[in-house]
């Protein structure tokens, strides 16, 4: 194997930029607040990042195909209240869990089918529609009120722990490992990157483009369903407005994590770092007593800043590659 071992600074930056940003952020917060780098607080950050991390994982697959999924927040809310309502009705937790995942996968695949088989012009359209349908159904199912007091067997997924490790963190780690293998080690994963890189070339290479896109949107819905279970468990209730804005948070995590809206680029590791950066920021700003309103401003700036840094480092990498050519 003659793979070049020489790593220029540009390439290091491109590969590890988001991680570097996360470390600098943690270092700075550690200096500014005595509380930030304590074990309890870090466990807390991980727990808080779990819901966004799960949604972002599905969103990553969608964005790699040069798509966007606006419906994940609503799907999250729907799966949340559906599970809660079923539990209230005495359905065993395992069945409620399967139903919550199932509704997510079903709504996601409808997005995919609308996009590919009915040839809607851009994923923005079907997922925007589904965003409203999902939220509406969540309100219908719950009657507009939160459904609280869930059985502990179900609450485990959001609030439980194994030894010191929160259950949602375990869910995140397992899902991320599976997605990592899926996207980097399977032919389906490579098809997904090829579709994002050049759909026409992928189609003319025999990639079943429609089927792959449906899979991707199904997975996005499924992950939103999983996030709904974790959130319901953590809050000990299913409330119909759960996950409002989750679509934008997940997109932000994916983009901060180095994926490109143009498709074909993005990693599972980067997305995890992106979700953690957002959680660390919120947590850190809380510790520093920054008001929620200003937190929102800061997060907005970070999203744009991260993409700006990304654009600059990509240009540097292009130069490095051109020089090597």
């Amino acid at each position, binding site marked *: 194997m003659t793979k070049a071992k020489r790593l220029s600074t540009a390439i290091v930056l491109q590969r590890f930029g988001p991680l570097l940003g996360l470390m600098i952020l943690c270092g700075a917060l550690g200096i500014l607040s005595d509380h930030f780098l304590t074990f309890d607080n870090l466990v807390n950050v991980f727990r808080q990042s779990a819901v966004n991390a799960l949604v972002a994982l599905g969103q990553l697959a969608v964005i790699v195909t040069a798509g966007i999924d606006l419906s994940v927040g609503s799907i999250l809310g729907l799966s949340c209240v559906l599970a809660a309502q079923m539990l209230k009705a005495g359905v065993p937790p395992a069945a409620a869990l399967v139903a919550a995942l199932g509704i997510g996968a079903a709504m996601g695949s409808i997005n995919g089918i609308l996009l590919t088989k009915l040839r809607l012009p851009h994923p923005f359209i079907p997922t925007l529609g589904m965003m409203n349908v999902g939220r509406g159904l969540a309100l219908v199912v719950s009657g507009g009120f939160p459904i609280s007091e869930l059985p502990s067997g179900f609450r485990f997924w959001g609030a439980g722990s194994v030894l010191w490790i929160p259950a949602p963190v375990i869910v995140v780690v397992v899902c991320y490992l599976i997605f990592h293998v899926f996207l980097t*080690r399977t*032919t389906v994963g490579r098809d997904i990157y*090829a579709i994002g890189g*050049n759909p*026409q*070339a992928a189609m003319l290479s*025999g*990639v079943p483009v429609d089927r792959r896109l449906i899979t991707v949107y199904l997975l996005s819905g499924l992950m939103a369903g999983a996030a709904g279970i974790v959130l319901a468990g953590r809050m000990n209730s299913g409330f119909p407005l759960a996950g409002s804005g989750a679509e934008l948070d997940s997109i932000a995590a994916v983009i901060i994590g180095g994926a490109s809206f143009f498709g074909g680029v993005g990693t599972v590791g980067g997305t995890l770092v992106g979700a953690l950066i957002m959680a660390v920021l919120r947590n850190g700003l809380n510790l520093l007593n920054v008001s929620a309103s200003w937190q929102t401003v800061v997060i907005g700036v970070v999203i744009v800043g991260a993409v700006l840094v990304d654009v600059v480092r990509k240009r540097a990498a292009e130069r490095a590659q051109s020089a090597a050519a």
Partner: protein
Amino acid sequence: MATPSVLLELRGISKSFSGFRVLDGVDFTVWPGEIHALAGENGAGKSTLMNIVSGVLTADSGEMRWEGCAVSVRTPREAQNLGIAFVHQELALAPDLSVAENIFLGRHPSARGWVRWRDIERRSRELLDELGHGIDARARVRDLSLAQRQLVEIARALAFQSRLIIMDEPTAPLTTRDAEGLFRTMRALRDRGVSIIYISHRLKEIFEIADRVTVMRDGRTVLSATPAATSEDGLVRAMAGEVLTRASAASPGAAAGSMQPALRVDEPHRLTVHRGEVVGIAGLAGAGRTRLLETLFGARGRPVKAEIDGTPVTIRHPQDAVRHGLALVPDDRKAKGLVLGAGLVENIALPAARGRLFLRAEVERLATERLVDELRIRAASIDQPLRFLSGGNQQKAVLAKWLYAGARIFLLDEPTRGVDVRSKAEIYEIILTLCARGCAVLVASSEMEELMALAGRIVVMHRGRIAGEMARHEASEERILKLATGGTH
């Protein structure tokens, strides 16, 4: 020579692109009120010359005179101000604006910044009435037929008081009836003193409409005459030049092939390719070569019934084609052939991976390295994004992915377009090696020399249909060109 009544005179116009001389001292004259046909093979320099006249490109050397005065036209705007308009092949109209808005696009008559819509509509109606095809000035361009859109472009040219209108293959997308209508309009314009440069491949039309015809070949004008003073054969000979019946360089693999048909179809065209055979597809731009190859590959949304190695199959989409051992090397490798942001491994292994779940990373890397060696693909590493590779190396990467997938029937669309001379020779070598291994190859090309060098048999297309077929030994550029321009066999 420069009598004052000449409208446009070009003398010694030359133009090179990155060292390659496209125009080599062209002389060209247009008189007021004439329809002047400009003919020549693809790549003869017609478009470049017209782009210089209309200010899109600037000549490296040479002189341009307009009504006897030396002028330099550096932008399309300057050409427009002189009175030169270009009606492009892919019409340059805004589909969602009205006809009237399009006619005055970029030049709205205005009063202190306010657009005078009423004037625009009135002037547009007058212009359209003059052309007399009953187009509504308020209609949206999107709702118009191609023929009507052309008329809008012509009205646009007239709105700017153009005295010279350049039309690039205006009849190519038209039905015969629409073409007749266009000719009537052109004659009417001529009678009003407007000159028209009419680029066309269709010899019959040239004889029908033109007052004079100029033929270009290899960046020079080789003939300028009235149609009466020449003949279809005369034009064809002028376009093809000296290399009439030159036998191609010996190519051992490209003989008639075995007698076993590898691919046989009746629809959309009756066509057979045998194992070990290269069949060429000739035809002018727009003759339907790309459509034919993409249809055979299942990429045009229409199922194709074919016999592959004698077994009947239906190809509904590219997945079927790949499964049956077909390979498509598309005409535009960047848009259709490659994932440019990915490296050689990802691209080369893409079609081969069907039916497996997990990647075999090590196998793929070794195979890619072997193919890179074998096809002499020059890249910094097999992970370097293909965007950074030269055209020739990119094209070899497209071939490599089908070699790795084990394809047996190759559909090649302009396989050496935009490729340097060395890679071109190497690609020919690859094609002939495929042949020697018993693969069947269908190659579409606008370069006749390429077809003569590779193909044992040449199929000629004209306006979406197969106009004829000939074995290599009976093929000549002259015969091919005649069929491709709609002449009789």
